[in-house]
């Protein structure tokens, strides 16, 4: 299979699936099948990309056969492919879970077409090597997520969606302004070329200002302190399938963008930008975990924990050593799987007991011990209990922090880990253990076929968590390769800029450095 086809398949598959789902708008069953096939196809294509990259290094392709700095490039390095694979895994899990979870009314109003469109946006963001194109994929992602979050039209959903939509529009506006300024400074939006051009701009102050625009914009999307408040206000409102998908992936696309931009583009003034990121990371961890402590709704507790966990990932980026970035990437992988799984568990609990409130769930363990077991695995992993995956992720970050001498952030990270344990224990005690209430007698609810189907993806993701825990090696290796490529961005830059020379009809072009006039900063 040609590299070009392999690179565009993660976009083509969901696009075709969205069209097919629209065509079969009146047959929900067909749509469900199409969706599962589509997500499976994306997973297969992503795994194919992984093997291609392991053999041949960073893969680059152009769209519409425009030569490199002018046209849009798709670039896949290890970080991209890891993100593609993990998001496809969540896609498959949620596609199966949604079969019983999403009602027919929602399906008729386009749940599956928009689910696939959301996947296009996410995959596009991971694939693109062009800053403006990244903006476009963010918009594709946001517009589909707007639809998914209000689909069903309940008052609660609309209230949550207003906050979600407004703050994300602000974020997009800042992103677009940043893109405009970057183009004005350098005359290019190709990220590889920008990586060289930005260091040639004579005004480091201006570059830092633009970096801050991107930090705020992606910070909103990634739910970084102090821009996270929209997340706990909206993620608990849609059906569990949607909130699991959002919780697992959407904020992580923002994190991915931060990783990409602050390793490839804005590394001129690391002392300033990355120190700011480190403060942001610390405060994000603390506020998130404190927010979770006072919540009494299953999904709200989990939502605040997304915020606090984002802090760990950004901590890896902010410390900016190869080991720290490795820790950050490992944390992203671990977190996406675990967090999506916890939301899926909350959906089953809701289905069994009719509520997300911890008090009304009380005593689940007595009647559904398997659900309790499946909750314990991701919950303890999230809290960083050895030997589960969260422990390794936190361990790597802690070591990286001590190595760089940033003791305070290590202290914060460890303390927040303890508080996370407290929150998970709270859910365990309140929702799963029997309480003092006398409503236990009528608590036995029958398990329909639908609920059994919902156990399948939960068990699968829990098994994957254990795999990452026990056989952490392969994931560690992938994270290490990603971190190396991110830390030494020259590999990425060379792969993209050398691609133009191999392109069939690209004429002879001067080297990147000998191109007067490209950088026209005054």
């Amino acid at each position, binding site marked *: 299979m040609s590299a070009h086809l392999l690179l565009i398949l993660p976009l083509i598959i969901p*696009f075709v699936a969205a069209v097919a789902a*629209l*065509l079969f*708008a009146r047959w929900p069953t067909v749509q469900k099948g199409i969706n599962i096939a589509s997500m499976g196809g994306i997973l297969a294509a992503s795994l194919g990309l992984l093997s291609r990259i392991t053999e041949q290094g960073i893969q680059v392709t152009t*769209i519409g*056969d425009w030569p490199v700095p002018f046209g849009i490039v798709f670039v896949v390095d290890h970080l991209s492919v890891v993100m593609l694979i993990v998001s496809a895994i969540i896609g498959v899990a949620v596609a199966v879970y949604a079969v019983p979870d999403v009602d027919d009314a929602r399906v008729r109003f386009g749940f599956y077409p928009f689910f696939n469109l959301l996947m296009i946006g996410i995959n596009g963001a991971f694939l693109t090597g062009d800053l403006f194109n990244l903006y476009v994929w963010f918009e594709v992602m946001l517009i589909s997520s707007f639809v998914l979050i209000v689909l069903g039209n309940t008052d609660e959903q609309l209230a949550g969606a207003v906050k979600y939509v407004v703050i994300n529009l602000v974020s997009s506006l800042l992103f677009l302004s940043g893109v405009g300024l970057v183009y004005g400074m350098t005359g290019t939006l190709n990220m590889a070329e920008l990586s060289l051009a930005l260091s040639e701009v004579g005004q480091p102050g201006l570059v830092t200002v633009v970096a801050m625009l991107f930090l705020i914009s992606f910070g909103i999307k990634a739910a970084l302190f102090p821009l996270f408040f929209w997340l706990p206000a909206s993620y608990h409102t849609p059906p569990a399938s949607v909130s699991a998908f959002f919780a697992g992936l959407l904020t992580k696309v923002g994190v991915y963008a931060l990783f990409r931009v602050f390793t490839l583009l804005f590394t001129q003034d690391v002392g300033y930008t990355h120190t700011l990121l480190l403060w942001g990371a610390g405060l994000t961890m603390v506020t998130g975990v404190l927010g979770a402590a006072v919540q009494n709704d299953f999904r709200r507790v989990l939502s605040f924990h997304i915020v606090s966990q984002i802090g760990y990932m950004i901590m890896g980026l902010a410390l900016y050593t190869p080991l720290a970035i490795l820790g950050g990437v490992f944390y992203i992988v671990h977190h996406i799987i675990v967090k999506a799984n916890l939301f899926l568990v909350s959906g089953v609990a809701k289905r069994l007991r009719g509520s997300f409130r911890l008090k009304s769930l009380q005593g689940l363990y007595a009647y559904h011990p398997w659900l309790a077991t499946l909750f314990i695995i991701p919950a303890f992993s999230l809290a960083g209990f050895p030997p589960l995956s969260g422990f390794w992720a936190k361990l790597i970050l802690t070591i990286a922090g001590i190595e760089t001498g940033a003791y305070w952030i290590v202290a914060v990270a460890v303390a927040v880990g303890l508080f996370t344990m407290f929150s998970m224990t709270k859910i365990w005690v309140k929702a799963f253990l029997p309480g003092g209430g006398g409503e236990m007698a009528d608590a036995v609810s029958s398990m329909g076929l639908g609920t059994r189907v919902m156990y399948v993806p939960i068990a699968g993701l829990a098994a994957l968590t254990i795999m990452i825990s026990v056989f952490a090696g392969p994931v560690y290796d992938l994270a290490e390769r990603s971190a190396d490529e991110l830390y030494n961005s020259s590999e990425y830059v060379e792969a993209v800029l050398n691609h133009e020379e191999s392109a069939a009809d690209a004429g002879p072009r001067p080297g990147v450095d000998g191109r007067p006039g490209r950088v026209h900063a005054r």
Partner: protein
Amino acid sequence: MRFSVILRTAARLLVPLILLFSVFLLLRGHNETGGGFIGGLVAGISFALYAIAYGTAASRESLRARPQRLMAVGLGIAVLSGLLPLFGGGTLLEGIWVKWGGLKVGTPVLFDVGVYLLVIGLTLVIVYELEEHNPGLFPQSVAPE
């Protein structure tokens, strides 16, 4: 809602004209200002006008396809135009051009036709949906007084 004779008579003349104009816009987009998006909007307007004059039931009937289906077909054509070059060993969305007499026709035209259908479908989903949730916005029956 009362039917307006003036509106009905005007609509009968205007609808075909507007449709024709929308196709003109679509084709003009090949080399000049215009294109599938604006053409689709204009075509959507003609069906909306018909709905205002004769009711959504009549408008739906004259469309002969569900607007959702139109959207799906439009999207499908657009995807196809992007994928076609792949079969000839090209890249995604690369233009393939055929000389047809003095006329150059290529995949971008196909893409525009896809957008055209998609936009008509989208506009009409919204217009018809508005009517369903606010009965009385447009006349309900096709029968004149």
